[in-house]
């Protein structure tokens, strides 16, 4: 399942030089000079970064590289100290998380956030955009939102079927396993109809048997025309499905390119494993949450 056989997506990246900050033919997300520090520590300092539309782009880096912080900044869950970023031509600076999501950039979380005391179906329906009944006064206009609700329910059932959760639709989300919660989160994000989906460690804490199925779902997102940006630790996973990889270390983009470029990049090996380390197949320890606080 190498990225090189993914014809369409690979074509889009044709001729793009694997150097940090390189321009892409049709970027959906453009980041310029985004910086965030916590006290004296500069967590994120990205000069220029573009994400190509309709591809799977992976964001990797050692613990504390600022991946999750960058995610939070771009999706409006944290405030930048400097810089600006554009999504689909609109400047997103200063927009809260909900506004970013409404514009079509929807994120998931490293620690899965299933709404545990709602049913799986309620989780899905909640995410549907532009509901009349979700406004306080609109809530009393039951006949008006009934039809909308039925349409959303149908869409939710299709998505649940695709993510193999349909049988669980009336169960509490809190009763799902870790992997199923990841699937639910992904399905729920799709209810928002995003053009770009940001997955924060989609494989963390997932039963290995489910990993393959999750990967197929991510590839399917790209194949239906969405852009995927995801943070991940597992190198095999990243190499297998990414069209493009961005490597972050100490808050800066130190390398980007196709999986084959990254695999050979000495800076990446040094940053990831420490200079002088020779066990190149070793996966780094899982991020214990320190990088996003």
């Amino acid at each position, binding site marked *: 399942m190498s990225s090189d056989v993914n014809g369409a997506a690979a074509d889009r990246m044709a001729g793009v030089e694997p150097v940090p900050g390189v321009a892409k033919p049709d970027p959906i997300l453009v980041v310029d000079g985004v910086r965030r520090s916590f006290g004296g520590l500069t967590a994120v300092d990205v000069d220029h970064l573009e994400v190509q539309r309709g591809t799977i782009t992976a964001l990797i880096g050692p613990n504390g590289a600022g991946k999750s912080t960058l995610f939070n900044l771009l999706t409006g869950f944290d405030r930048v100290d400097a810089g600006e970023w554009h999504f689909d031509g609109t400047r997103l600076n200063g927009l809260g998380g909900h506004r970013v999501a409404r514009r079509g950039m929807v994120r998931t*979380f490293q620690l899965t956030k299933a709404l545990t005391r709602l049913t799986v179906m309620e989780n899905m329906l909640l995410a549907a955009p532009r509901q009349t009944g979700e*406004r306080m006064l609109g*809530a*009393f206009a*039951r006949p008006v939102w009934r039809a909308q609700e039925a349409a959303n329910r149908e869409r939710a059932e299709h998505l649940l079927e695709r993510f193999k959760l349909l049988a669980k639709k009336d169960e509490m989300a*809190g009763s799902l396993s870790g992997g199923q919660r990841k699937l639910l989160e992904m399905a729920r994000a799709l209810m928002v109809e995003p053009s770009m989906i940001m997955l924060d460690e989609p494989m963390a804490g997932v039963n290995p048997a489910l990993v393959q199925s999750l990967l197929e779902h991510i590839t399917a997102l790209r194949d239906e025309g969405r852009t995927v940006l995801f943070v991940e630790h597992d190198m095999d996973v990243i190499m297998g499905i990414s069209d493009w990889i961005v490597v972050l270390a100490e808050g800066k983009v130190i390398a980007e390119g196709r999986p084959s470029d990254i695999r050979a990049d000495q800076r990446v090996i040094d940053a990831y494993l420490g200079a002088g380390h020779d066990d190149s197949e070793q996966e780094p320890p899982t991020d214990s949450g320190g990088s996003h606080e």
Partner: protein
Amino acid sequence: MDILQVLADATRSAIGPVAAVYALAAIGLNMHFGYTGLLNFGQVGFMLVGGYGVAVSVSTFGLPLWAGILVGIACAVALALLLGVPTLRLRADYLAITTIAVAEVARLVYRAEFLRDITGGVYGLQGFAGGFYDLNPFPSGRYGFGWLAFNARDLWMMTVAWGLVLLASVLMWLLVHSPWGRVIKGIREDEDAVRSLGKNVFVYKMQSLVLGGVFGALAGAMLVVNQQTITPDQFMPQVTFYLWAILLLGGAGRTLGPVLGSVVMWFLLTASDSVLRQLTSSGVITFITNSEIGGIRHALVGVALVVLIVFRPQGLIGNRKEMLVNVK
């Protein structure tokens, strides 16, 4: 001991106007905590501004009663905005700290000497409820049967107060069984998740705070109309904790939880009071004086609540399955 007397006292209290007032205020708290997960420890503050809205408007400024109730509601909206704007963007515990402090500060301001001309200071206000009782459609007389009879005034008060409880319950049911209610419950579970799905969490929390506060203000207005007098020191912080006890007893996150909680709570409070009074006056218990009964009955109810929380944490009509989802 006269069991019938105990039952009569307890039942009168359980269906009386005060139980309705507490049910109404607890419905507001249910909106805050039961559905939205907001920790409001200052519900009594909303009752206070609602009560004084009526008393000050009518007694001090000579406005009609309906205007006073509107003023009380407006004060509750203002108080909710005042509390919510700075704290609802922060973590849940900040709202808890702020609400308990603001409710207590409000009580001290309303009883302050410099406001004596308006609020009556520590002596409060009287003579503002006449307009309410003038509207009483029931001719005077006794209504009910035997030991469970009320006079026309009480019947009118109970009709209006329980009518409001019914109205508030229907309103709550409609709201929480709508997409709006689904977002609200989502916020209770995890507000970041809801935000990431494109919902403006701050606005929802504010709407919930305002609506629950308005229910609190209506309860306060009903309370002082029932008493026909208002004093600042009846709005002590413990009122809020009675409301919490009522909510948890009945079942948070259930439409009828606070209503049932209030009825049962007042039944128990009055029953224990009645039993203790009979035991002391008949000489069975000699080591408690009448003046100590008030404290002891609260201790007994406290023990009952502890037992309830241990053996039935979801309350009388809560959903145990839902309650335990996060602790497995």
